[in-house]
């Protein structure tokens, strides 16, 4: 498999499509540390900045399937071109592991435990499942 397999694809209609990556940019919002990012998001929201735009800041999208830009009237957000290598090395997806340990694999949660047991997943594999889901969510960004 070559690097072009992730940059160029065939869509459902059989057309060749190009995965050009961008980063959503709203000024004033840092990407890290997370507490600082969330603090400034809430701070600028007090003075009228769009919460949707500030949460998108720092996120990577394939340009042809990204959210509309501008997102609303007076939206000053920009898109910054990013190489796929940058996206691949920097992109992160997070999932609270308690959703598995304290919810999915608990009894009396409407059959969710049974779904995963039927798939052959047990609690000790939770961390493996957790890592897989994080990786899959990044891969899903491309489709």
């Amino acid at each position: 498999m070559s690097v072009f397999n992730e940059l160029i694809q065939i869509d459902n209609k059989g057309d060749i499509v190009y995965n050009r990556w961008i980063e959503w940019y709203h000024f004033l919002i840092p990407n890290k540390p997370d507490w600082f990012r969330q603090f400034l998001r809430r701070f600028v929201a007090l003075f009228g900045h769009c919460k949707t735009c500030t949460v998108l800041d720092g996120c990577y999208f394939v340009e042809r399937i990204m959210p509309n830009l501008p997102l609303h009237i007076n939206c000053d957000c920009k898109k910054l071109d990013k190489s796929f290598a940058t996206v691949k090395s920097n992109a992160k997806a997070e999932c609270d592991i308690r959703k598995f340990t304290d919810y999915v694999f608990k009894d009396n949660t409407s059959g969710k435990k049974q779904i995963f047991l039927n798939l052959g997943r047990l609690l000790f594999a939770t961390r493996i499942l957790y890592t897989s889901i994080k990786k899959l969510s990044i891969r899903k960004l491309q489709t």
Partner: protein
Amino acid sequence: MKKYDLICLKNDSPYKKYGVERNIHGMIIDVLQNHVQVLFFNPRNNDEFTLINVNKSDIALDKEVVSENIKSLLGENIEKLKSRENYIFTSPKFKLFDKVELIVEKEKYSKFGLHKGYIGFVIDNIVINNSVEVDFTDLGKNRLYDGETFSISIDDLKIVK
């Protein structure tokens, strides 16, 4: 310590009555003799913030620094924040993974197939616009995975034992 410095609360004992806890971050918006007035956001409710007078010995400076744009944004609008002086954060109504029931029949829910009496689990209990995220997914009659997660107003839910 000076205005616009970012701080971390180290001793929360005198301030628990406001709902703030140790290690919460804030921004100094005014400097008094032995105290500073600090802006804190409620980590459990996106709609709430407070301004509290804090003893300088109860906080530690954080290494992060706000930009000049942020400082001017605050400087122009500081009076807007004053109405929340000594505001007490509300306690969360739901804990993570609480089993809840939808207690209303509203078009904004029913158009997505959610009706009064439906049972779900709180999957994210941080309140945003007075709502929390509830998981209504279930194994349906045909043992097929069905349903969706939705943002539901906290006033439209009750805890189920």
